[in-house]
Each structure stands twice: as structure tokens, then as C-alpha cells.
């Protein structure tokens, strides 16, 4: 079965599981019917996508079919890229909306063109357009009309803004050559799954100055069976493995932090593993000493963050979990658009001298602590002097916990709905910034963007018997990232679609990449590019 069919069925059935309370034959028939219509439509989309790619690649050439030639705006685009160097030409056609009407298929498409001119200028064009198609008796498709290119984005630069220098600074390192240069699919075939490696596993990266030389070093987390790697930043900028002992843990490590846990002016290391949070003390920048493991209630660990929520000078640790161990016992609790069977996140309060106490319940963080939490970030969003906590949850609502003092006691209050930051979706990443420099923190949330999801959820026969509200939720799940903008009242508004197309987004962060004082957004994306190429 190909991935297109699976996502179709996935979205359809997930909904059927959630909302179709009816049992028996009728429900089954309904599901099959929806499936078939959506599948037929998706098959047509695939062919139209191919035709459009063929048609639009003529933009790079001198002569174009009359259907394009007759529209001035298409000619203008062709002017920008024609004569560009062949091997740098790239074209991507993504259909994100399909409507069927009396035998005619209306599609909306995003087109991305990349090229390099003879003068080595880099050119990038993004545009959207509509087109309509008719299926012929032989199963082929005939184009009836093509619309003007709209919402044009045109970029040009004499050079690329970033240079991939991985090989230059890491390429000769054996750790890189033998281990890190190879991706997950390589290791899946070589490491027994029993060690804690799987096809869906995610492992993080941390930067911090481990040896106190003023330069950030790198810690790379790995799935179970492969050692995490501590690599040192040498004066010439290259990255080398060091003689530091005690860093190469083999357990699946989702996330790591360089933090000075014992306030002795060096960077200790904390690791999120299924066995708990491993606490490692930095000893003279030469070795790591195991100071203990904070036992957690769940195993599907994801994000690890440090803060000092009670401002006592000792760092506290917060760990999130996606799957919950209870979900096995209670199958029905998974609901695609509002899952409440996730693992419980945990807060560990630092008491100094490597002592921690569990503070989740005590501080009120146990409220609604049943979501699939993939990411978290601490930030004093209300500027009252203490850090608040935003959690990005998969399959549902995100949470914002405001840090309050209630009768002299630190208490977190969940206010996401109150201030408008629930951002229902497949939350995967959190980053705080102040993009408009109004002095009020804004938050950028990484979500899933899916062309297939957008196509299917917008079809009129998608879940015909479900409520519009539910359909809207499903549509939202495919819409992508969200920038939530804070106003003076302390509430947030969605910035809108201009920053949402980050594809299947993971880390989505603020960073001012051109030093102009305005924070830009970087999005790492792509779910799984397996060895078999039959993707959406």
C-alpha cells in the first residue's frame, strides 16, 4: 500500500473512530464509500500533479504552450528564470486543494521554482494558481484552463545565505565517518530493535561550552544502541571527539541539556532517557560523573528543559512525554483531534547539591497532564519576573501555564484558552521571540502542514455526516505552523497563513539570521524519507 492511500485512510478512519458513534454495517459501508471517493480523487491528483510539472517546466525554456503563453504574468515569471543554468533548475508543484464539479476537477496549486542565472545569481519564485481539468475516457486528463499566478514571492541573491560546511569541520572525524554520517535507516538494519531504536524515533542536539574555553561544544543524542556523542569545538572551528569520559550513553536519548546544575561555573549534562533523567556532573571539563537518575513515571520521553521557576537559584528540570503507558489499558481514550491518553509530564525542583524533588503535583502542573507533549519552552511571557511554561501537544490543544504565587506558594495556572494560545493541532515545537519589537513576547509553534491533508479535508464528501466544527478541526491539523502574537492586553492573535507553510515541521524557531534586528523564522521539516520512493 502506498503512503497516499494510507494517509487517506488514516485521516478518514481516525475521524471515523472519533466521531462515528454508530455501529455495525451502516458505518462500515459509509467508511468504505468515503475511502473510495477520496482515493479516486487522490489518484487523479497524482496524475494532474505530474501534468502540471511537465507543463510548468516549460517556464525555463524559450517556447511555452499557448495556454501559458497567453497569460502575461506567466511570461513575466518565465523572464525571471529562462536562460538559467540547467543543473540548478528545480521545480516543485504541490496541489493543496481539489474540487470536483460536474465532471470538472478544479485544483489549486503552489509552485516553487529555483534557478541560478548565468551571472550566478540565485533565484527563487513561489506562486499559487488555479487550474481546471477534465478526465478523458482513456483515463488521461485534459487541461481546460489555467489561472494567473497569484501571491508571487520573488527572491534573488548574489550568493546563498548559508554554506553547508559539515564536511569541512567534521568530515575527517571518525565518529562522523563511521557513525553520524549515516542516517536512521542505515542503523535500523544493524542495531537490534530491543536496544531501543525504531523507525519513528527522534533524538535531539544541545550546544553548550563543556570545557569552559568560551566556545560552544556539541552533544548529539542517539537512539538506543548507538552512543550519544560529545564533540568539542576547537579553536579553528572544527569539531573533534575528545577524551572526555562518561558521555557516550547508549540508551535512547531524546533530549540533552548543558546546564550548570551545581552552580560551580561549569556545564553539567542532563539526558532525557526512558530510564529517567540522567544527571552528569562536569569534572574539570575532563570527565562526566554520574550523580544520579531522576526516575520518571513514563518512558516515551521527548523534551527536556531547565528553568528556575521558584527563583531560588537552583535549576529545575521539566521533561515531557508523548505516549502514555495507560493508553494500552484504555484504547478508546485516543482521539485524533483531542488526545487525552498521553504520558504525564514531570517537573523536578532543584534543591542544590544534586538533589531534586518531584514537584509536578505540588505546583499544579498535573492539571490536564495527559496530552502527547512533544515540546516545551519556559518564558516570562507576562514580564512579571518569573518563567511561564508553554507546552506543544500533538493531537490537540497546547497549554500555557502561568507561574503565579498563590498564598506564598508557587502555582501554575493553565490559561491557554483564556489568552488564545491553544493552537489546536499537531504541536511539535515551541519558540519564543518578539518579532515585532513591541516588547511583548510572541510564540511560534511548529505544527504539521500536509498538502494531502488539506486536499482531503476540504473535499465536500469528506465525512459528510460529521459536524462542520469537527471538519474544521481536521482541516486545522493540516494547516501548518502558527505565530501567536501578543497584544497589550496579554492575549494572543494568530498572525495568519504567511508563516504557516513549514511543511511537516519539527524545530521551528526564531533567529535573526541577517543581523538586522528583526527575528526571522527557521523551520526544519520532513517526516520520513524512506528508502522506497513512493511518497505523497
Amino acid at each position, binding site marked *: 500500500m502506498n503512503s497516499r492511500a494510507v494517509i487517506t485512510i488514516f485521516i478518514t478512519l481516525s475521524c471515523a473512530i472519533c466521531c462515528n458513534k454508530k455501529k455495525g454495517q451502516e458505518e462500515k459501508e459509509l467508511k468504505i464509500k468515503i475511502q473510495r471517493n477520496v482515493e479516486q480523487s487522490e489518484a487523479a491528483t497524482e496524475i494532474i500533479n505530474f501534468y502540471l510539472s511537465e507543463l510548468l517546466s516549460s517556464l525555463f525554456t524559450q517556447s511555452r504552450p499557448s495556454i501559458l503563453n497567453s497569460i502575461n504574468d506567466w511570461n513575466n515569471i518565465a523572464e525571471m528564470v529562462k536562460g538559467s543554468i540547467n543543473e540548478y533548475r528545480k521545480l516543485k508543484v504541490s496541489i493543496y486543494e481539489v474540487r470536483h464539479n460536474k465532471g470538472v476537477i478544479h485544483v489549486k496549486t503552489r509552485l516553487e521554482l529555483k534557478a541560478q542565472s548565468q551571472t550566478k545569481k540565485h533565484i527563487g519564485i513561489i506562486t499559487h494558481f488555479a487550474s481546471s481539468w477534465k478526465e478523458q475516457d482513456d483515463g488521461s486528463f485534459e487541461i481546460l484552463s489555467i489561472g494567473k499566478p497569484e501571491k508571487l514571492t520573488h527572491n534573488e541573491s548574489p550568493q546563498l545565505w548559508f554554506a553547508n560546511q559539515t564536511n569541512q569541520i567534521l568530515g575527517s572525524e571518525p565518529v562522523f565517518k563511521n557513525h553520524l554520517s549515516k542516517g536512521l535507516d542505515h542503523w535500523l538494519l544493524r542495531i537490534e530493535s530491543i536496544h531501543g531504536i525504531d523507525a519513528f524515533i527522534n533524538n535531539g542536539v544541545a550546544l553548550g561550552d563543556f570545557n569552559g574555553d568560551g566556545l560552544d561544544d556539541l552533544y548529539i543524542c542517539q537512539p538506543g544502541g548507538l552512543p550519544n556523542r560529545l564533540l568539542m569545538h576547537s579553536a579553528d572551528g572544527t569539531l573533534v571527539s575528545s577524551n572526555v569520559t562518561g558521555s557516550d550513553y547508549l540508551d535512547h536519548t531524546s533530549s540533552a541539556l548543558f546546564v550548570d546544575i551545581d552552580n560551580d561555573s561549569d556545564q553539567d549534562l542532563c539526558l532525557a532517557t526512558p530510564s*529517567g533523567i540522567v544527571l552528569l556532573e562536569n569534572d574539570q571539563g575532563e570527565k562526566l560523573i554520574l550523580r544520579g537518575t531522576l526516575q520518571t513515571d513514563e518512558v516515551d520521553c521527548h523534551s527536556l528543559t531547565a528553568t528556575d521557576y521558584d527563583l531560588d537559584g537552583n535549576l529545575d528540570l521539566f521533561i515531557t512525554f508523548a505516549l502514555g503507558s495507560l493508553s494500552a489499558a484504555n484504547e478508546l481514550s485516543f482521539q485524533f483531534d483531542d488526545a487525552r491518553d498521553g504520558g504525564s509530564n514531570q517537573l523536578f525542583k532543584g534543591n542544590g547539591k544534586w538533589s531534586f524533588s518531584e514537584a509536578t503535583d505540588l505546583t499544579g502542573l498535573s492539571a490536564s497532564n495527559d496530552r502527547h507533549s512533544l515540546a516545551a519552552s519556559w518564558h516570562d511571557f507576562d514580564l512579571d519576573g518569573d518563567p511561564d511554561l508553554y507546552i506543544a501537544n500533538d493531537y490537540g490543544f497546547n497549554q500555557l501555564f502561568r507561574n503565579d504565587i498563590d498564598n506564598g506558594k508557587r502555582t501554575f495556572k493553565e490559561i491557554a484558552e483564556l489568552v488564545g494560545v491553544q493552537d489546536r493541532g499537531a504541536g511539535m515545537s515551541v519558540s519564543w521571540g518578539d518579532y515585532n519589537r513591541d516588547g511583548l513576547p510572541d510564540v511560534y509553534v511548529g505544527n504539521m502542514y500536509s498538502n494531502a491533508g488539506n486536499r482531503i479535508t476540504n473535499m465536500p464528501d469528506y465525512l459528510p455526516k460529521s459536524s462542520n466544527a469537527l471538519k474544521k478541526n481536521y482541516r486545522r491539523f493540516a494547516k501548518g505552523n502558527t505565530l501567536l502574537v501578543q497584544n497589550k492586553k496579554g492575549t494572543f492573535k494568530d498572525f495568519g497563513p504567511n508563516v504557516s507553510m513549514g511543511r511537516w515541521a519539527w524545530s521551528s524557531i526564531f533567529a535573526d539570521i541577517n543581523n538586522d534586528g528583526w527575528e526571522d523564522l527557521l523551520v526544519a521539516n520532513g517526516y520520513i524519507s524512506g528508502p522506497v520512493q513512493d511518497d505523497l
Partner: protein
Amino acid sequence: MPLGNAGIGPGLGNSDPANQLQRMVRSGSSFSGNESHVVFLNEKGENFKDISSITGLDYDDDGRSVCMSDWDRDGDLDVWISNRNGPQIRYFRNDSPNLNKSIIISLEGKTCNRDAIGARVVLRTKDGLSQMRTVTAGSGFLSQSTKALHFGIANKEESMELDIYWPGNKIQKVGNIIPGHYVIKQGSKPKSLEVNNSFEINSTPRNKPVDRTLLAQVLPVKSIFGLSKNDLKKPILLSMTRNDCEQCDYQLMTWKKNPPKGLTLKILNSEKLAKNNQLLLELFQITHDHFYEIIGRAIPTPVSFLISTKGNLRAIYRGVIDPKTLSEDMISIQNDNLDLRNISLPFEGIWASRSNPTARPLNFVEDLLDAGKLSAAENYIASEKNTLIQDETFQMLLERLNALKKERRP
């Protein structure tokens, strides 16, 4: 949205779509893959423009973490991105075409935590537009960027002022800052960052790992490959080759010249098996896949199984086998006190978890049943009953087998 799991819990309930998706990915398919990273340029706080195509960051290797830091100390932010695909990490040097400058601040707390995590710094410029950065530890997705705070200041030349809000709301004002990287200890004046780089570099590069798995799980397989007591007088190397495979030809040629000593060599050919003994071919694949989180992916050939005289599968070799490794392995597998968990891995390291994985032959029977190989499963149960019966779910396994058999009967 990670739909899989680390062998923990059922994921999305036991709903079929989730299972189908998991099977699909384990068998090597893509899912929302081959995408390219996105960069949105902030246009003075009014809008964002997708400039991915001119950034050189738009790689398509399934990115996960993004960590920022001025790695090359030229005043702009460089990027580390981790990936699911290889290479697992990429470094992107910032070469953006501008002459803009920056102020970078590393903080050290005194009354607050030493890392000053939670400290907020506001940079004030004469045009009235402030900038605000906070020291964080952990953000984005599974990422920790540098703790140094970075302020782009465009092409401004005038000196600027900073307000530092240390955790606990103690405010420190710092004036007359010009572009550069500074360290500010709580209550003290800024000092320019000094780099003092001296550490020992690991001078003993590890050898290239041998491409084989000396298995942590010792699985009985004699009934699967129909090995008799007589066959098992010596260890067996069961090697799968195929036609039009250079490495296979090379391997066969070297074995012809120098047959491996102390073992029985059995060569299988996948094309021949496909014609004459499809079942054996499938059982070979099922046995291979049992150990890894994959389903039915093409196994690079030649691939060889080392089976001990006890009839246990002990090692899987990919590609041409190094004779030295093979003879070492034959000695190793006779040792009953091997640290199987560590010996099975390509690299050294430390474990936080104590549990030591052991083979669970019952799971292997489940794999056979999943693949519909009922008679192979029955034979396996008959052959390994003494081991299987110790598993508490053995009775349930028998029930499943019987139910499947009933389904088969017309």
C-alpha cells in the same frame, strides 16, 4: 506527530491506520518525506517572506533539531540541524550578504542560577525600537541553542544600552555597548569574550566498525532451516546470495579459494529459492527482520547467518565477510558469559538502564503467525517447546495458532 513508538504502548490505540502506517514505514516507505527546510524573513515586523530558496538551508533530509550559535565568531548566527537521514547533523555557516553587525552577550549569574537561565536582556537603541532576548535551556524541538544572547543591530554605529533583568527581577543597566561578544557577570561590567582553547584531542581513532551484528538475542532457529543434529556438528554459516551481485561473486570466489575453517558453509541463492523454495526465502527474511525494526526491506546481499552448534542464530553479516572477524566470532560464541548487550553494538558506550535484553522466541513465533507461516510456526513450537513453555503467554500463542488454523480450513 511521531506516530510510532519505541516499542512502548500501542500508539494510536490499536486503530488500523496507525498500524498500517507503522508497517509501511518499517518496510521502507516514505511519509511526508523529501521536503525542504523553510526560512521566513522578518520584514521589519510587518510581514514574513519565504526566502528558503536563496538561503542554502533548504535541504531535504528530514530535519529535527535546529540549534543556533555564532560558531565561527564572526558576529552572525550559524546553524546546526539534526536529521533523521544521513548525515545526522549538518553545519551551515552564515554567509548572508550584508554588512550588519551584532552584539552578543553571555551572562553569568551570582545571586541567581549561574547560567542565568531566565534572565532577560533588553537592548535599547535611539530609534526607540527595543530588542528582547531571554536565556533559555531547551526550546524548539529537542534542541538547545547557545546560551549567548544575540542582537542584530543592522548597520548602526552608535553605542547602545542594555537592561538586564536577572532572575528575581534585579535590574542591571549597562551602557556604551558597541558591537562584539561580551561576558557579563551579574553586577559587573562587560568583558570581551576571551577564547581559551586547549583540550586533549582523542588521538586513537576507532576502527571502522565491522558490518555485522553479533546478536544480543540468542534465537533458536534449527527448525526454521531444517538443521539436523548431524548438520549441527559444526557451526553453520548460511549465506544468501543473488545473481548480478558483485559482492556475492567476490565472496563466493574467495570462499572457493579459502573456505572458512571449522564450519559448514551453506550457500543459498535468492533467485533459485524464489523458484524452488519460496518458503525458505521468506523464512530467511522473517528471521532477519525479527531482530530489527523493519519489515520486508530488501536485505543487501550477500547476507550470512552464523548458527552455533546449539542451533542458535548468533550473528548476521552484511556484505563480504572479513575472515578474521568470522574466526573471532566463532570463538566468542562458545563463551557463555559474553556481555551480549554490548558486544552486539558497533560502538562502545555506557548504559543508564540495567535491563539486559534476552531473546523471546515466542515473539518470533508471533512473527511467523503474522506472516501466515502456520506450519513453520507449528514446527518451531514442536522443536522449541521446552523454551517456549516457560513464557507465560504460551497458552495464548497456541490459541492464536489454532484460531488461525480454523480460519484457513474451508
